[in-house]
């Protein structure tokens, strides 16, 4: 293979700056989307376990809608279609004046999609708790809401830390799709460096390493949370 290796290009300006800026946008997209995913996903997951059938059905519909359509399609729908469906004034504002439209769209799309997946984890966590343990909470006089707050949710969230780790990792990886609507995140910047310098191997190696570093940090963080919150005596606890 006839290829001019030049690792130094990664440390030259403007390319180093591009990489760092890409890293920053990747973090900004993924973390903001995670906040949405966690909040919306928790709400939807909890609503899937309430007694009211209509509420449960609506929550289930959310999950099926968002997890069964390819993320890339959802991203395009949010970016190209949704602004046209909004009331005229709001639509115009979104298209013309909303600051950072690509970023906002990417965050909303990724957040809404991941929320469906988080909702399933939350729901399954709540449903792992046996009926009589739920009854035990009610039997001491807790209201159904208190039973969620003090018994069912604290136990569920501790159980689902490991599967939530996977979702948290996936959101960083999925954030690379934001480049398709013009967010200059890490993958986009790596490609841009390749375009300018023809040093594609170096550029994408740098991106790969940075993704790995991020995800390994996430794994460490979640493991720490798992250790701090794990229920003594549960499976795998020390």
């Amino acid at each position, binding site marked *: 293979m006839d290829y001019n290796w030049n690792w130094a290009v990664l440390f030259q300006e403007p390319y180093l700056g591009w990489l760092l800026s890409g890293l920053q946008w990747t973090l900004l997209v993924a973390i903001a989307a995670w906040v949405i995913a966690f909040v919306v996903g928790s709400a939807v997951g909890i609503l899937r376990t309430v007694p009211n059938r209509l509420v449960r059905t609506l929550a289930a519909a959310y999950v099926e809608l968002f997890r069964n359509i390819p993320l890339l399609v959802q991203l395009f729908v949010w970016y190209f279609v949704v602004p046209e469906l909004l009331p005229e004034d709001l639509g115009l504002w979104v298209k013309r004046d909303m600051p950072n439209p690509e970023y906002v769209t990417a965050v909303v799309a990724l957040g809404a999609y991941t929320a469906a997946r988080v909702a399933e984890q939350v729901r399954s966590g709540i449903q792992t708790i046996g009926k009589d343990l739920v009854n035990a909470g009610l039997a001491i*006089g807790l209201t159904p809401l208190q039973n969620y707050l003090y018994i069912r949710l604290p136990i569920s969230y501790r159980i689902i830390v490991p599967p939530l780790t996977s979702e948290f990792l996936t959101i960083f990886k999925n954030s690379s799709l934001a480049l398709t609507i013009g967010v200059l995140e890490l993958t986009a910047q790596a490609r841009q460096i390749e375009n300018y310098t023809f040093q594609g191997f170096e550029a994408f190696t740098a991106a790969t390493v940075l993704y790995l570093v991020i995800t390994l940090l996430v794994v460490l963080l979640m493991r720490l949370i798992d250790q701090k919150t794990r229920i003594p005596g549960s499976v795998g606890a020390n």
Partner: protein
Amino acid sequence: MIKIDNIDKWYDDFHVLKGCSLEVERGEVIVICGPSGSGKSTLIKCVNALEPVDSGRIVVEETDVTARGTKLPLVRARIGMVFQHFELFPHKTVIENLMMGQIKVLKRSREAAREKAESLLKRVGLADQAQKYPSALSGGQQQRVAIARALAMDPIAMCFDEPTSALDPEMISEVLDVMVELAKEGMTMMVVTHEMGFARRVARRVVFMDQGEVKEIADTDTFFRNPETDRAKEFLSKILAH
């Protein structure tokens, strides 16, 4: 004090309770026995509306548990419930298990709740286990904590749903001892159990259930010496034979 009046309950098309009636007086200890699947556990869970009934009425000290609009949490807080598999809150320490209901439901101060919890743990012989998590305790210890948790709410009556059937044989007596003590102090108790020795010692009456029906309600002596129904005779001969 507890009046169960002609209740019926279905699980889909399975008729689990068929016109059951039973009255429990203040201070009375009632043992409910019968073959598995006879509806004993379901009946006892109807008393604090953990299982809703399809028809009939249950009244606990003037409060109609089965009426619409009854504030169930308040009723439930007054009836202690002990489950077959203990059902302690696994993410809370033993003492926190006993304090939870006192603080969240009865609105006692943390100090008052802790004091009450400590005295109850002492009473069931587990004062030194207060800071442990439930999983670190043996089954018998967990069940004693569960009884203490129910007592922490100052209940007017206690319901036990097969409290010893998940225990190793050698732990059964430590739980029964606590229950006998409770009975002697005059607690109103409904106990679903196969422990006939316990029934003989403390129960005033025995209820025999089969296939969702209350087949027999008799004074304990009469029930063991001369059960009315053939089904009860057969049941007794099987469980007393060994």
